[in-house]
């Protein structure tokens, strides 16, 4: 508009200065053009706009369908331009995010488009809109408050079983043998019959051996446990190579582990170590699963000097003698803190994605590569064997392998043996 107006005025000034009406008449079409555009400019456009998501929580890989609905509540607008700027992490799969529309008064327009994105919480900013006239010279920029947020949860393959055996259980029936007699299915011991014992509990073989008094069978109580999952979010642990990050294996692993444990009925908490200490207080059930998944969706690797090593890992945060599951590729010097956790009475299960196998795939061939990989493997094997000797259950996880299968092959159905109090590590 400014260009056209400047051109017309320039011609008029030249025409006046040169006293040539012909030049002024050349400027007239431009002024008529501006005048017609001005006449058609919408004075008070009013719109109602709605942006809806098919689901506010989806998993990685799922398509997010956005539906935009516009209702013209004012006069007719010849050109209505709408642009929905997507968060940069989301990619358009189908449809378009920009449209130019003509809607009569009371008219409605609805359109859909599909996007996809990685793990995270994404906020859609207000839509950019302007209403203009046919020539496109005059526009009225409009604001909308159709703000929306979508959470892309980590996708994971469920784990069939995760046998754990912490030193302490909590007082509700669950899947973990508690080393106490009570209701259960596994044989625990025998004791003299006490009035009130059901007849089917009488161990007739033992009674036949000790004829003077009847003997009852005792079963081992199976209970629930407190489990704390610690996910290592330190920058040095989140190796990234050619667009792939080790974190994108660790986060789904944490989600799968939490899901399995919550399904088994345990009380599960989650701590992200690295971005300060992000902590989901222990809880049960589906709501806790949602909380954990939401925290994992937001998890990003961060670099804080204070959290470069595990020295600030809060060892007293989790209930005493509970089960800890530490998911980390490990860096040297981490073992001290893990031993300290063990020394505080926690039962520690380490799930360690193998960073060497992960990196090896993406490194171009080099004469010394094979030797370097061998040395790195030796160093890692030494670190892991030290941890195993210190009573830590270690699952060395090459990320190409499915975690559930690996857990099954390492831990089997039966939980790892539990060290009795006072036993040597």
């Amino acid at each position, binding site marked *: *508009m*400014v*260009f056209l*107006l400047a*051109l017309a*005025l320039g*011609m008029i000034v*030249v*025409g006046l200065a*040169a006293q*040539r*009406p*012909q*030049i*002024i*008449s*050349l400027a*007239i*079409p*431009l*002024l*008529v*053009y501006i*005048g*017609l555009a001005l006449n*058609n400019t919408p004075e008070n456009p009013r719109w109602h706009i709605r942006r809806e998501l098919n689901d506010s929580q989806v998993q990685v890989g799922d398509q997010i369908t956005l539906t935009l609905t516009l209702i013209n509540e004012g006069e007719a607008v*010849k*050109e209505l*331009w709408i642009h929905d700027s997507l968060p940069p992490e989301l990619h358009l799969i189908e449809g*378009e995010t*920009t*449209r*130019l*529309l*003509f809607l009569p008064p009371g008219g409605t327009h609805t359109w859909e488009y599909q996007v996809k994105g990685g793990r995270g919480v994404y906020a859609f900013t207000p839509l950019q809109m302007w209403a203009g006239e*046919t*020539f*496109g010279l*005059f526009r009225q920029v409009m604001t909308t408050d159709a703000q929306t947020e979508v959470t892309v949860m980590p996708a994971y393959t469920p784990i069939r079983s995760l046998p754990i055996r912490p030193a302490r259980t909590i007082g509700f029936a669950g899947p973990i043998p508690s080393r106490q007699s009570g209701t259960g299915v596994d044989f625990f011991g025998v004791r003299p019959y006490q009035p009130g014992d059901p007849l089917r509990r009488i161990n007739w073989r033992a009674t036949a051996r000790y004829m003077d008094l009847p003997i009852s069978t005792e079963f081992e109580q199976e209970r629930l446990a407190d489990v704390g999952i610690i996910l290592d979010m330190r920058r040095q642990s989140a190796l990234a190579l050619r667009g792939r990050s080790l974190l994108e294996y660790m986060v789904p692993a944490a989600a799968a582990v939490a899901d399995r444990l919550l399904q088994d009925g345990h009380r599960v908490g989650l701590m992200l170590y690295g971005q300060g200490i992000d902590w989901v207080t222990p809880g049960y059930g589906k709501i806790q699963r949602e909380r954990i998944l939401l925290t994992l969706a937001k998890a990003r690797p961060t670099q804080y000097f204070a959290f470069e090593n595990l020295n600030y890992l809060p060892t007293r945060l989790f209930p005493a003698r509970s089960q800890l599951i530490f998911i980390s590729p490990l860096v040297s010097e981490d073992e001290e803190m893990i031993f300290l956790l063990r020394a505080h009475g926690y039962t520690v299960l380490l799930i360690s994605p193998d960073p060497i196998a992960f990196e090896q795939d993406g490194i171009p061939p080099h004469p010394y590569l094979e030797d370097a990989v061998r040395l790195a493997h030796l160093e890692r094997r030494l670190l892991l064997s030290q941890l195993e000797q210190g009573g830590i259950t270690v699952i060395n996880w090459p990320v190409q392998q499915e975690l559930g299968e690996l857990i099954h092959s390492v831990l089997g159905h039966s939980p790892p043996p539990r060290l009795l109090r006072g036993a040597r590590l």
Partner: protein
Amino acid sequence: MMKPIWTTFYLSLAAAVLLLASGSLLAEVWQLAGLFALMGIGWVWGKQRGRSAAAAGLLLFCLGAVYGTAVGVSVGWLVSGVIAALVAWDLDSVLHRWQFVREEDIPLFWQAHIRQLARLLVLALLLASLPLLLSLQLRFGLILGFALLAIIALSQFIRWAGK
């Protein structure tokens, strides 16, 4: 669906070149006729390479027309040529703007646009002939007052348009 718009764009650009060049040829200003032809080719060349040469094209056509008045080209040819160039400039912008219009909506947009262009043609031709027919004797003070009024009106207009 955009084909009729492209056709109209090329036709209006060709009309602008033909009208301006014909006027120049009739006034025996060969060089100006050649320049108008070159400007038209340049505009099409820029458009086909995805660069909008519309603003530069319209500016050059207008400057050429202003020069044409000085060298005796008939103003009727020049005004008609400028109107055709203005239509080409408008359609150049339409071709860019309407890439976000749904296929099925294009005829609706096109009809509304054609109606507006028709109004432009009629009004522009009528009003452009006025300065040629009217002749007023004004005192210098009055002209100064009008100029002041025009400046204030213009600034108010730009402020309003900016809002």
